[in-house]
Each structure stands twice: as structure tokens, then as C-alpha cells.
């Protein structure tokens, strides 16, 4: 489930090929392809008419995926601030 969300987040801003998606979600090619098929079936993503084929988030879902993207942003968890002493 988390990987599906990560796929949606990775293609939210810009359509991506399956190889580009695979690099973002750290899955094998086969696993990525399976998840993409599942997301197409669930009508969450669509194939762009481009070569090579790229995938993008359905327009009506973009707002909700933006919220997911915000939640799955781990930047503050790996910031350099000292989290106890507030330096």
C-alpha cells in the first residue's frame, strides 16, 4: 500500500516512465509493473500518449495525492537540527 502511494507521489508533478518510477520507489521492474497495472485498474493513473510510455496521476486525484505527498515527506526526520536541545 505504501509503495502504491509512493508511485503516485513520484508521478504527481510530472509523468514518468516505468524505469524512472522504479528508481524512485526502490522496487524491481516486475514489482513496479505489477503495481502500475493495479493503479491503472483502480483508475488512479493513466498512460500518456508518448514514447516511451509515461504514467501520470488522474486529474481528479491530484489534490488528495498532494496531501499524501506532504505526509510522506520525511525531510524533517533527517534534518540536521538537534531534536532534543533545539540547536
Amino acid at each position, binding site marked *: 500500500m505504501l509503495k502504491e502511494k509512493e508511485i503516485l507521489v513520484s508521478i504527481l508533478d510530472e509523468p514518468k516512465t516505468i524505469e524512472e518510477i522504479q528508481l524512485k520507489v526502490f522496487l524491481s521492474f516486475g514489482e513496479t509493473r505489477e503495481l502500475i497495472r493495479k493503479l491503472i485498474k483502480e483508475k488512479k493513473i493513466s498512460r500518456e500518449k508518448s514514447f516511451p510510455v509515461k504514467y501520470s496521476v488522474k486529474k481528479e486525484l491530484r489534490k488528495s495525492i498532494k496531501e499524501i505527498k506532504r505526509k510522506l515527506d520525511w525531510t524533517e526526520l*533527517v534534518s540536521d537540527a*538537534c531534536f532534543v536541545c533545539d*540547536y
Partner: protein
Amino acid sequence: MKFFEDLIKKLKKETKFLFNGMNTYELQRTKGSECAAVLLSEVKHSDHYFYLDSSIAIKSLCELSDHLQEMDAETFSKHVNEEKNDFSAWVSNTIGDKTLGKKMNELKEQDEIAKAVEIRVNYIKRRAQNNY
């Protein structure tokens, strides 16, 4: 006279690090690794452990990270639902990592929370090992 004495005391306090041979940046970085080690350490008192059930007591962030990955959905939903997030509260209030606790509170799915804790624990471990 007291005014000057207080002023000198304040100046000494503010510039103490200069006379120890360390600059502010080095001092902050040293503090950082101490804080990281504190966050990784086990909770001292058994009253403050996180009890998943009568037999499993979680004593540290590392143990929480391990348990979150293996926990069954039923146990998870007892602690995280629409009304509460026990893990987030424990991390913020007992462990003391308010950044992680706040992030966990925004998340509701087990795999998301597990990933957040894993990322944080790995970062804290690197921080503690680097001995800034």
C-alpha cells in the same frame, strides 16, 4: 557594582566555550550526538515502557521500529485509530522525540508509521555514531 558583577557573570557564561577551546559550531555538533544517543537509549523505568499486550514491552525507539514492521493489523488498530495514536504520544512524551511524534500523529497507516520510525532511527544511529 552588582550590575557589573552580573554583566561579567553573563559574559563569562556566554563565552565559556571560547576558553574551552571549542567554537559554537563544534559544541552544538557535540551536543547533537549526545542527544541522538539519548533518543536511542532504553526507557529507564518499566512504568514507561510501551506495552503492546501483557507479554510485549517496548523499551526503545529501535524496538518500536522492529515491532511496527511485524505487528498484526489488529494490534496496530488498538493503538492507532481515528481517536488516538498511542505510538505517537509515547514517542513524543516518553522518548522525547517530538519531531518524530508529530510526524507519526499525521499518519494513520501501519506501513507509513513504520517507515517514518525506521527512517528516523537510521538517521539518529548515524548521528550518534558520527560523534560530531
